[in-house]
């Protein structure tokens, strides 16, 4: 244990364990391991799970910008996910625009939607905001379901499963792993940037105390809208990646309350408002839920969800600060040098 402080002083800006405002060895090791995993094409049987884990980690980080950092707990983020996915897919199918460009259009459209939601909910806090975000997502879903000429209605949209690099239809699972890992790292980088920037600090201020922030010269509505727009844009990017992986968009899943819940759950379990939280949350829960679904989904319909949700309740009651919070507590129990 005494070796640690010496090493930390040689690299003063990198801490041992995850912390706000600092990159830690823990994350460097974690992310490098992921890159190695992908680069060497390890564990082919788990590639599906890896793609989903990376994707959801990125989505959790995106949600966290609004939820954990700005205090905007939204249960309607699937709307932004869907908007991103549908925008790029529609642009591809109807106008032949490659998803490599469509992904930006999707992000931009989602960002606008995010700003709109924040403006609608300008005066709302707490459960009212949550409910409004739910209603918002439902409106988007109903529109997607009932506009067949544009969105394919209940049948959804599909992309031909023909490998086509120019149009983001990658041929192999490891390629998708790489793509989603890049997304994860991008979202992580945005999060770390927030922690080290004035804008990010303003998010925390608005989260913790609106009135004090206004007295300090911050316009809370502007900050909330920007945070939501950024969060929505990143979520929309994830949506496009999802569309390009599964090659099929089903509105009842893609814009569902269950999916919205998932985006919020991962950061909550991993540690709200932290950079490492959503990553830990996804790496823990995504494989677990896939595992449970694979093994128990057949045994008794719903058993895996019973276990999953019971576990969630227990975690929320006993570890409200999430895994990252528990790590913090462990860290502060270590004897001081």
């Amino acid at each position: 244990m005494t070796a640690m402080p010496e090493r930390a002083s040689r690299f003063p800006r990198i801490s041992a364990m995850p912390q706000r405002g600092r990159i830690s060895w823990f994350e460097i090791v974690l992310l490098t391991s992921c890159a190695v995993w992908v680069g060497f094409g390890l564990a082919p049987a788990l590639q599906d799970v890896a793609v989903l884990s990376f994707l959801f980690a990125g989505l959790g980080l995106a949600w966290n910008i609004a939820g954990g950092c700005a205090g905007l707990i939204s249960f309607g983020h699937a709307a932004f996910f869907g908007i991103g996915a549908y925008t790029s897919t529609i642009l591809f199918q109807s106008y032949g625009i490659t998803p490599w460009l469509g992904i930006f259009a999707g992000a931009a459209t989602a960002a606008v939607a995010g700003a709109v939601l924040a403006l609608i909910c300008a005066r709302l806090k707490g459960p009212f905001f949550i409910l409004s975000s739910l209603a918002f997502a439902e409106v988007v879903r109903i529109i997607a379901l009932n506009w067949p000429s544009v969105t394919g209605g209940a049948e959804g949209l599909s992309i031909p499963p023909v490998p086509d690099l120019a149009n983001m239809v990658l041929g192999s699972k490891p390629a998708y792993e790489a793509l989603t890992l890049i997304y994860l790292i991008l979202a992580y980088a945005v999060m770390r940037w927030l922690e080290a920037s004035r804008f990010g600090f303003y998010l925390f201020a608005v989260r913790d105390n609106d009135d004090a922030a206004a007295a300090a010269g911050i316009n809370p509505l502007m900050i909330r809208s920007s945070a939501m727009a950024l969060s929505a844009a990143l979520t929309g990017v994830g949506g496009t990646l999802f569309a390009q992986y599964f090659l099929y968009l089903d509105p009842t899943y893609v814009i569902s309350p269950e999916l919205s819940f998932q985006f919020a759950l991962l950061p909550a379990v991993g540690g709200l408002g932290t950079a490492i939280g959503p990553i830990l949350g996804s790496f823990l829960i995504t494989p677990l839920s896939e595992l449970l679904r694979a093994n128990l989904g057949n045994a008794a319909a719903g058993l895996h969800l019973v276990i999953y949700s019971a576990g969630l309740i227990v975690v929320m009651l006993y570890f409200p600060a999430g895994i990252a919070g528990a790590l913090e507590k462990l860290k502060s129990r270590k004897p001081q040098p």
Partner: protein
Amino acid sequence: MNTIIQLVISGLLIGSIYALMSIGLTLIFGVLRVVNFAHGEFLMIAMYAAWAFSKLLGLNPYVAAIAVVPAMFLFGALVYRLVIGSALEKPHLVVVFATMGLSIFLQNIALMAMTADLRDVPPIFGRSISIGHVFIKGELLLGFIITLACTIALQWVIKYTFLGKAIRATVQDGEAAKLMGIAVPRIFLITFATGSALVGLAACVMLPLFSVFPTVGLNFVLIAFVIVVLGGMGSIEGALLGGFCVGVVQSVGSYYVAPAFGQLFFFVLFLLVMIFRPNGLFGQKGAATLGMNE
């Protein structure tokens, strides 16, 4: 013209039943300041219970209420003890996630126990009652009457009994209430359990009209939320009037546009209320910003 009258009347009646299922939610929010995201699942469980009593004992669901309502009261108390109580003093989102988790838990327990098959009870009333040119289903009318009776009874309890006063005191100032010797946690428990009991009553009234299946709660919980917000969190009269609004909007909307758009209309209605009157039509001032940042 007749069509409109028919639609509005049906809308008001079904709306009253929606209101009955929402009163518990608004009561719980008004007193505990928490939104129970598992509210729909409480309704689902109660509907299954009503169905079971019906099927097993040959009772009709209205009579089964005698058993279902107390059972739901106990169920609510149990959930409060196990989950809600300890979540209350933690950060706000613990309750949100815990009740969401509870929602998924209950849905899947029901799925495992009862399978996804729709269950319903045979109609109680033979044919619709007709008043002038308007046809009213007996189940709807009875539901409306029960809702009114229940609302009046609740208002009486809140205004004239000690329990009611204790509840009002807790709503206005929890700290002061504690200092006056009111056992606030006990009030919370009783309120939560009562809210659940009310859901039980609603379930008995709804079973003759709707089938029950494990995810039926999802359909209704969003309706309940819209009603509660419209009427103002914590207002019982508000829930009733909110229910009427929603019932009529859905009834008229579904008829003139596709049924899905009926749903869309009331979500849009919800968002409009959030923009312009976040405290609802009858809610407490400042309700929209309750509980945050302090």
